[in-house]
């Protein structure tokens, strides 16, 4: 990761008195530059967050605020079997998608990390799913999973298998949702791992070659340890994204059949905007934030190094 040089330069500049003719002028200026963005983000994330906390202390009926109920909405979280089941579904989804995406993406990146013709094309193609509108991907997947004559079942039948009830069977529906997410996000793991592999310092590998290291040793003692912080970062970003999943289950299965694919965000969305129980929805949102923050703090110490001196 070739940025040590940049950082050294920037530190010199920032501490070099000649670079900023007047310190007080620079002081005022820097707050004028960063101020608007900071105020904006405080207004649009911190304020709504506090408003959500406040809202979570009230009971609502049909969208109208009734009385102050203290922590009652939070107490409901732990007795609501639908919420707990949506949390279980989401956890299954997160574990299923993130594991497969990491393994597949890293494997592909290791495999294709060499000078091959058309590597730009491969990178371009890998970008396509990442930016394809997720709702659109979900709807497209309905036609792919079409049970009677869709391409997936046609292929399975051609290989001698049985028709799979992709969207009508509760367990298969969750698998279907997971597969779509894997299609969309494995390229993310692949692209970033590949970029990480290609930014590894080649001098180390030259030195290793001089020392007569084997390919396995190279991987075991150089590539893998050097890549570890980046892999943690990918894991962190994927888990955070995966926990908030909403678009694909909404478009592909609408949470069904029954509640089989009603993920956490969908349940909260319905609590807020179908049942207009805003207080309870706010409490659910806060619980999700706590869960996500817990994961972030667990992993963030391992990736902090990547962001140092920024």
């Amino acid at each position, binding site marked *: 990761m070739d940025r040590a040089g940049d950082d050294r330069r920037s530190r010199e500049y920032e501490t070099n008195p000649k670079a900023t003719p007047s310190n007080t002028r*620079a002081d005022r200026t820097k707050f004028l530059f960063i101020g608007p963005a900071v105020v904006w983000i405080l207004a649009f994330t911190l304020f*709504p967050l506090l408003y959500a906390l406040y809202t979570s202390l009230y009971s609502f009926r049909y969208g109208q605020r009734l009385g102050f109920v203290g922590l009652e909405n939070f107490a409901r979280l732990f007795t609501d079997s639908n919420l707990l089941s949506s949390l279980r579904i989401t956890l299954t989804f997160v574990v299923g998608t993130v594991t497969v995406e990491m393994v597949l993406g890293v494997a592909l990146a290791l495999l294709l990390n060499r000078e091959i013709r058309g590597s730009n094309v*491969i990178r*371009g*193609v890998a970008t396509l799913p990442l*930016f*394809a509108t*997720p709702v659109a991907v979900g709807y497209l997947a309905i036609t792919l999973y079409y049970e009677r004559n869709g391409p997936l079942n046609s292929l399975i039948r051609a290989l001698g298998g049985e028709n799979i009830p992709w969207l009508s069977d509760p367990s298969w529906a969750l698998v279907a949702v997971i597969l779509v997410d894997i299609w969309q996000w494995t390229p993310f793991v692949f692209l*970033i791992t590949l970029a990480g592999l290609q930014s590894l310092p080649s001098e180390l590998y030259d030195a290793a070659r001089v020392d007569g290291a084997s390919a396995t040793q190279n991987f075991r003692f150089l590539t893998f340890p050097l890549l570890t912080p980046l892999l943690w970062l990918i894991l962190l970003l994927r888990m955070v994204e995966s926990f908030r999943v909403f678009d694909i289950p909404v478009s592909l299965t609408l949470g069904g059949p029954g509640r089989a694919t009603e993920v956490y965000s969908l349940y*909260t969305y319905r609590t807020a905007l179908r049942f207009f129980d805003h207080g309870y929805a706010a409490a659910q949102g806060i619980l999700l934030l706590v869960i996500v923050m817990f994961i972030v703090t667990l992993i963030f110490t391992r990736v902090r190094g990547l962001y140092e001196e920024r």
Partner: protein
Amino acid sequence: MRLVYRAGLGLTTAVALSLVLFPFYWAFLNSIKRPEETFQPSWIPFLQFQPTLEHWRSQLATPEIRHALLNSTIISIGAATLALLLGTLAAYALARFRFNRPSNGALTTWFISQRVLPPVLFVTPFFLLMRQFGLLDSVWALVLLNATFTMPFAVIILSQTFRELPRELEEAALVDGASHFQSFFSIVLPLALPGLAAAWVICMAFSWNEFLFALSLTSQSAIPMPVIIAGAEHTRGVQFWFVGVNVLMTMLVPIVLALLAQRYIIRGLTLGALKG
């Protein structure tokens, strides 16, 4: 042995690429098939079936779709511009000035951390607040929100872009008595143009794709494309040919935008951990 290895590599690449590309091709096929042919296992236009542009024409002539395309355009351009405007200033501050308490690193992490917040947390407060301010079913509400949540991308991409620019020109201008604002606007911004364009385009793509807030805060006149797609099933059942058209129409915009900004995507997606 080497040959076997190379063949295996080629095969894996081919399989991976076709797995990625096939769904797009399938959407395209559905969009040019006549309804009665949709459920036939025919895969090659002209040879196996006579393609038609009828669905594209009829969808593009539908007023709701045109209106949604317009809304999506306003939302993504407006949000990206706003995010870029504020994000560029902040990025310059992070790249060129030294902050203590909070330090530059802490400030950067704080900007990035906005991406970690689960959006569904904001559905209730945004809905109630927008209702209070009379901004329900307004594209402007979505402009404001998407600007907020895409701003971290602008900050990250641009603070790195600014760090990579040579400082000598700026220093010379400052010594000659120019203010930071003057040197920022007349020297730094023109030099950073490729980064600015890339950040703008990436923010636009993310705003175009946003669905949860769009679904929560629009009901009729402000509906963008992703919500149109989501509504299709309930009114008419899944009509594969229209799904094909809508899906492609919606996806095409962010995908083209992303390909334009290819060089900057890695640093955007890793929130600046890697330059790519």
